[in-house]
Structures are given as structure tokens and as C-alpha cells.
């Protein structure tokens, strides 16, 4: 597909790198010639230097025949204008990043309709939603929700002395009565889709799916306490913090936000009256303890500095806070943060990239590929794909025991008549099913690709 990406910030670059790997023809627009040159040196894309709301520039970038324009430049207004113009020139679909809360209110619908935007994305709101989900299930490092509502994959890091350590998967299944699957394991920088003989080690990051009714029970049996975070401390008064605090406050949790800037504090206090807003330097450990660090269920560090987030989270963790979440935007710092024992690291740009990639996949889907939606799991090492099972599938109604699957692929879940089935060897696929397939280190294009 011909895709134009306007704006080469953090999100723009992450998007480009993903779109290029997926084989799209990408044209990038930015008004800094140096940035454009750097990007065209690293990625196989064409660069156009100029204002992305200039029709000449858009035309030069091929907006006339492009399938999609993704505007992720610095300002909301510029993004909307760029999308509007591109649409008028001939671009089929447009996505604008709009992050200011005032635009994300009532005006959003009007703008979307009149500017003919296909999608509006708000990175901070997305990040806040993700964080909120995570805080509902704090023992998991990450919760991935698939398009079928109740089907979730829980990512968890095995701590030392976990009851799962040193146990092979087939043994595990007989030990716990619940139906569940460990569908992906990340060890070091390598990701695996494990088979029955796989033995778990501490430090592994595992991806777990189970029937929704059994998840809680299962986690308890595995020795993981499962309580919703009711008292949350947020460091940094960014927009993400605002959206998160708002959601938490509505759901009845106690929220404390620590922010240096007094004016920002006043705004936050006005917008979220239920939250406790503290004006002070979060890097000051005494302040944190004074404000009740020892009594909180979760500590979320969302300041603009990756390093500060990592350091303070690891401090909070050492002080015994059960759940710490750090925002880390720079990819190169992620492994470092994991090395320091932080299991939940969020990066807003990855959420956006995921959402946009899903959209692109869906667009492509209408052009022939049979993948319904795509999710990237385990730091992008594993892909989860949703397929609709059609009646012409070669291995319909055959039990999984009879089939040989490719290495590092797995059927993680079947949705039949709105019910979720965690598959075992006796299950089979039927026409009309929706199926979620996991694949590590490879790209699947159709459902039959999973057979060896």
C-alpha cells in the first residue's frame, strides 16, 4: 500500500519502521531536512521535506494516489489540516493524531465527520486506557485484550521461587485442573512458542490465556495474589497521568499525583477534584514516603524523563510497593529497565503503532489478506493474528492431535458461538469459528500457514 507518514517524531519513526517491515511503500514528510535525510538513510522510504499541510508538498509525496495518510506531526491543528487537504487531493483514508484534551471532547465527533478523518488517535488516552487495564490486574505485567471482548492474554514475569519454576508444561497442565495455555515465552531477547516439553525458568516472561471465569482462580493457585490496585501514586502530571487519574477516580480508586509545576497542579486539581495533587519534586524520596509510598498498591512513573522513571520505579519496588509501572519511551532503555527488575514498562508510541498497524492490516484485509487483526506481543517478538475460519479450509473438523503444526506457532484460542475455547489436542476447527493464532519469529499470511 502507498502510505504517507507526516511528522517524524518518536511515533512517526516507530510507525515507519513497522510499516516498512510489513512491505508498504512509505513516503515521509517533515520540515527538518536533517531528520528527513537521516530517516531515508536508515529506512527504505522516500523523503519529502516541507510543511505537511502544503498541497504542493502533499502532491509531491503522492497524496493523489495514496491509500493512507498518517499525520503525527507536532501540533494537532497541523495534523487535522494535513489530513483534510490530503483527503481533498485524493488520499483514500486519513488518520490524525489529536492529543489536546479540549479537542477530544464534544468537538471530536464534529471534526471527525467534517474533516472526513478515518481515525483520530490520542496517544495519551490510549496509554492511560492500557495502564488502567493493567492496574485492574496488577499481578500481570501486561494484559492484552483481543477483539473478542473477554479473551485476554496475561503477560507475567516469573519471579524467583515461583511454583512454576523448573516445571515442564505438560506436567503443569496435569497439576492445575483449570484449562489454560502458556502460549508464549520470552527468555532473554529470544521469544518461543513452547511445546509440552518446555521447562520454565525464573525470569521468563510468559503469556497466559485461560477461560475468563478461571483466570482469577488459576492465578491464585499459582501463588499470585490478585487484587485490584485501589491506592495509586502517579508521578508526573502529564496528559497520560491526567487521563489515567480521571479513569481511576471514576472507578473509585484513591489517586495521588505528584508534579513539580504549580500551575499544572492547579489545573489538574480543577479537572480531577477527587485526586490528591501534590506539588513537589518526585525525585525526593522523603517526599514520596511522606505522601504514603509504603501504603500504595501501585506506583506509576510518567515523567518526561525515561531515566527518572526507571530509577524511581526501581526505588519504589525496593520499598515494597507491589506494582510499579515505568514509562520508557526510548527503545534502547527498555532492556536496561527490564534488567533492573521492572516488569511493566509502557511506551505510548508502541500503543499507537499497534493501533495504527491494526488499522492498516484491516485496510489490507479488504484487499485480499485473510488476517483479521494483528497484535504484537512480548516486545514485538510474537504476533497474534485473528482469522475467520472459512468453509474451504483444508483441515476443518480434524482434531489437533492428528495435525502437525509448524514450530513456534500455536492456536491460542477458538471463539465459537461467543464462547471461548482454550484448545487442547481433542479440539478442532469448524467453519464460522474465529481463531487466534500466535507465531514467533515468522510471518503468517493465511490460516493454513500454521501447518508444517
Amino acid at each position, binding site marked *: 500500500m502507498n502510505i504517507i507518514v507526516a511528522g517524524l517524531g518518536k511515533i512517526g519513526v516507530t510507525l515507519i519502521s513497522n510499516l516498512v517491515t510489513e512491505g508498504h511503500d512509505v513516503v515521509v514528510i517533515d520540515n527538518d531536512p536533517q531528520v528527513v535525510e537521516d530517516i*531515508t*538513510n*536508515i*529506512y*527504505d522510504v*522516500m523523503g519529502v521535506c516541507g510543511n505537511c499541510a502544503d498541497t504542493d508538498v502533499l502532491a509531491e509525496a503522492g497524496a493523489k494516489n495514496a491509500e493512507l495518510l498518517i499525520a503525527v506531526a507536532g501540533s494537532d491543528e497541523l495534523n487535522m489540516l494535513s489530513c483534510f487537504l490530503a483527503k481533498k487531493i485524493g488520499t483514500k483514508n486519513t488518520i490524525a493524531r489529536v492529543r489536546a484534551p479540549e479537542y477530544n471532547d464534544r468537538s471530536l465527533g464534529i471534526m471527525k465527520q467534517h474533516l472526513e478523518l478515518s481515525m483520530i488517535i490520542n496517544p495519551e488516552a490510549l496509554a492511560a486506557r492500557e495502564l488502567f487495564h493493567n492496574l485492574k490486574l496488577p499481578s500481570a505485567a501486561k494484559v492484552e485484550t483481543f477483539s473478542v471482548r473477554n479473551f485476554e492474554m496475561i503477560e507475567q514475569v516469573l519471579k524467583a521461587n515461583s511454583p512454576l519454576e523448573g516445571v515442564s508444561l505438560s506436567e503443569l497442565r496435569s497439576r492445575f485442573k483449570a484449562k489454560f495455555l502458556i502460549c508464549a515465552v520470552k527468555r532473554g531477547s529470544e521469544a518461543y512458542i513452547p511445546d509440552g516439553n518446555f521447562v520454565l525458568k525464573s525470569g521468563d516472561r510468559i503469556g497466559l490465556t485461560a477461560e475468563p471465569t478461571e483466570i482469577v482462580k488459576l492465578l491464585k493457585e499459582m501463588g499470585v495474589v490478585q487484587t485490584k490496585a485501589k491506592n495509586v501514586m502517579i508521578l508526573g502530571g502529564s496528559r497520560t497521568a491526567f487521563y489515567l487519574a480521571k479513569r481511576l477516580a471514576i472507578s473509585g480508586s484513591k489517586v495521588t499525583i505528584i508534579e513539580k509545576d504549580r500551575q499544572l497542579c492547579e489545573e489538574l486539581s480543577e479537572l480531577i477534584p477527587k485526586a490528591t495533587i501534590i506539588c513537589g519534586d518526585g525525585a525526593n524520596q522523603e517526599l514520596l514516603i511522606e505522601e504514603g509510598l509504603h501504603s500504595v498498591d501501585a506506583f506509576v512513573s510518567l515523567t518526561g524523563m525515561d531515566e527518572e522513571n526507571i530509577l524511581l520505579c526501581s526505588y519504589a519496588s525496593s520499598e515494597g510497593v507491589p506494582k510499579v509501572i515505568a514509562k520508557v519511551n526510548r527503545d534502547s532503555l527498555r532492556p536496561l529497565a527490564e534488567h533492573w527488575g521492572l516488569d511493566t514498562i509502557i511506551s505510548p508510541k508502541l500503543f499507537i503503532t499497534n493501533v495504527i498497524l491494526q488499522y492498516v492490516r484491516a485496510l489490507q484485509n479488504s484487499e485480499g489478506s485473510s488476517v483479521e487483526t494483528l497484535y504484537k506481543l512480548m516486545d514485538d517478538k510474537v504476533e497474534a493474528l485473528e482469522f475467520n475460519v472459512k468453509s474451504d479450509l483444508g483441515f476443518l473438523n480434524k482434531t489437533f492431535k492428528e495435525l502437525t503444526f509448524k514450530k513456534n506457532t500455536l492456536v491460542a484460542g477458538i471463539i465459537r458461538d461467543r464462547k471461548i475455547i482454550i484448545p487442547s489436542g481433542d479440539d478442532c476447527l469448524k467453519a464460522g469459528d474465529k481463531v487466534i493464532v500466535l507465531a514467533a519469529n515468522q510471518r503468517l499470511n493465511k490460516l493454513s500457514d500454521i501447518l508444517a
Partner: protein
Amino acid sequence: MNKKMVFYMLGKIVQLEAALMVPSLICACLYKENRIVLSFAVTIAIALIMGFVLSALGKTKNKEIYAKEGFVIVALAWIGMSAVGAVPFVISGEIPSFLDAFFETVSGFTTTGSSILTDIEAMSKGLLFWRSFTHWVGGMGVLVLVMAILPSESGRTIHIIRAEMPGPVIGKLVPKVKSTSRILYLIYIFLSAVQVIFLLCGNMSLFDSLVHTFGTAGTGGFGVRADSIGGYSPYIQWVITIFMLIFGVNFNIYYFILAKKFKSVLKSEELLVYISIIVVSSGVIAIDIFNNIAEMNVLSDSIRHATFQAASIVTTTGYVTVDYNLWPGLSKTIITILLFIGACAGSTAGGFKVSRVIMIFKSIKANLKHSLHSRSVEVVRVEGKSLDSETVSSVKSYLAIYIFCFVIILALISFNGYDVETNFTAAATCFNNVGPGLGMIGPAGSFQEFSNFSKLVLSAAMLLGRLEIYPMLLLFSPSVWIKRKAKVKAK
């Protein structure tokens, strides 16, 4: 330095060269030249083995190519290709000395067209075909061809294209390197095919048409006759003149025509200056030879020869219709000047490139104005876009290094003890990938008499000129070979 990736790419290139020898092998088969068939077969076998060994050595997961690797791959590829390409000449015994054969092949791949052969017509058809075919391949670039065929290994392959394609600023036509190289090659093949048809219409034999098309398309200049194009009809001479000029135009222009962006074509300053240079220089030469040379007293003849010569030199092709060594001083001087200018950037031609000349003139103009009004702010605009100061200064430093290299080559050549005219034009013609010069190496002469050392220097000069200096210089710079200690991911 990702040495494995360098090996891998070199292996692929040698394999590709083996494949590129197949047409010449077939040609030799058709003319029943058994000796030549054998020498090609042996060379292809050697090249394939070398290619597989190199790419096996270079098998690696890390496929990243940075600017450094790009330069090294391009420089080594060109040296390696010329060395392998010289083998058939040596095995067949038609050019017994390897150095001579190497010079001839370098001259072929760099589309120079300078020859050490004294009796071209005695050569076998198979080798003549290969000699000209190297022009065709070298014209658009071997690595561009590799990019068009091979699955892309890394997003950074633009570094390779940039190191191989001539011109100050290399952009892509479409988002992907692979598609860009394919489009370039398709335009190239299409234009070549059209030329073959035009030549066939002029009753030229198929073999001659192909060989001369290769020479014209790559702006090389190898022919099959001692008098180059002189013996062919005026129609053939005009066809070749026009196609030389066509292949000297930036290929982006043809893409714009394909994409129906006619405005960009008409606005192209480079094209305008290029055409003006040809019109003015061929006009002056025509009048000069019309007045001063007895055989040129027919106006149509003098115009034809003047245009042909101006086109041939400015596009750095190097075909000749008459011995211009006998022309008056004014014409010879103009030819010497044209040796340096070269044609458009992004074409198959060599030389300094019209676009660089334009940029330098404009920046000089801006500097002059600045020295009069010291507070004035001048932005140099070329092709309707403002140039950033970095590009301007890189073009200026290219000029400096270009002159510097030329002076060194000239000094090294002078040890032969020939006259100034010969030395000067020998250095200029090889460095700018033109072909013939003046004096001893004029249209009637050859480089055979030069010492082995000079042939080596001139081979280096041709490679320097074709790859626009930097890749070759960087190959010998120690900092390229010092190990990269830590890799920092650029984000």
C-alpha cells in the same frame, strides 16, 4: 564495519557478472569462435565458484549496511568486477598482458572507452561484444542492477546506490530502493531497444547495432572499427548523436515524463543548461571548422561533425567521426573544456556534471553579492528548491578534491615524457570517463604506448571518475577499517 555483509555483496556481484557474461558466450558460439567460447566458459566457472565462496563466507544475520559499508562495497565491487572481466581477454590470448586487459575492462565498466588496442578489427566478435557490453552494464551501475534483482536485505541499501550513482544529490523516484532501481533499468532497457531499432533501420548489422547501442547507452565509446563511427552513413551518425544526448540527460526527467509531470521537466534548469552548452559549443565548432578545414566546406557536414563531436565529448561517450586532432586550435580548446563538464547528474555519463557547475556558479554569485552587501542573506536555489548550505559546501569541496585528484594524476602521467597536450588530455579523458584525448591519444591513437605504471594510474583515474572519487579514496582511508567498538542504535 560489517565485513561479512561486504563479502556477501561482493559474492553476489561476482555471481551476477558470471551471468552477465552469458550473452557474450552465446555471441561467440554464434560466430563459431571456439577459443573465445572456451575462455568465457572458464571465466564463468571461476566467477561462479568465487561468488559462491564469497557469499558463503559472508553469511550473517546482521544485514545492516551503513555509509561506510556502502562505500567499501561499491569500490571493491568495481575493482573486483574489472579484474574478473579482464580474464577472458587474457585466456583467449587476444590481450596477453593482464594489466592491459584490466585497463581495457576498467575502461569498459567505467564507460570511458579509452583503449590499448591498436587493431580493433582483428579482435574476435565475442570479445568485442563483451567489451561493449561492459559499457552497458557499467553505465547504469552494477549495484543498481543488484538492487533491482536481489531481495532487499536492509533498509539502508540507499547508501550503495548513493555511492554508485553519479551526481551531488541522489533521491529516489519511488519509496522503495528496489522499485527505484527497477524503474531506472526499465527506462534504460527501453531507450536502448529503441536505439537498436533506429540503427537497424539504417541498415546496420545486428551485431554492430547492439555493440554501438551498448557504447551509446552507457556513454562509453567502444566501437568495432578503427575509425569509430566515421565509416557509417550520416543517418547512423545522427541517430548516435541524438541517443548520446538522450543518455546524457538525468533519468529522473524520463520518470517525470512517464508520470506525466511535464511541468517538472520544463522547469529543469539542468536540462536547459545542458542543451545550451551543446548548442553553443557545437555552433562555435561548426563555424570554426567550416571556415578552416578544407574537407568541411559543406555546411551540413560541418554541422554534423561538430554536433557529433560536441555531443560525444560532453556526454563523455568518446565516439568520433573524424580525426579532430587536425582541427584548428579553437575547436580543440572547446573539446578540452567539454571534457571536464560532463552531462547531467543521474545519467549514465561521467565528468563533473552540469548540476554541480550550476550550483557552483550560483553560490559564487551569492558570495559576490554578499561581499558587496555584507548583511545580505543569500539562499542558493536550484531547480526551484533552496539548497541547504551543507550541500553547497559539499559540492565546493568536491570541486576542490576533483582538481586535486586531477593534478596528481596529471603529475604521475607526465613521467612518460610525452608532450603536454597528450599528458593533460590523457589524465582528463580517463578521469572524466570520456575516451579519446588529443595528441598521441587522439581519435587515431591508443594508450598502448603508455608505461605499465601509467596504465595502472589511468585505471585508477577511471574508477575515481566513475564513482565520483569518495568511495575509492575512502577504501584506502584507515578509519574505514578500524573496528567499530560499540554499535549505538540510531533512533
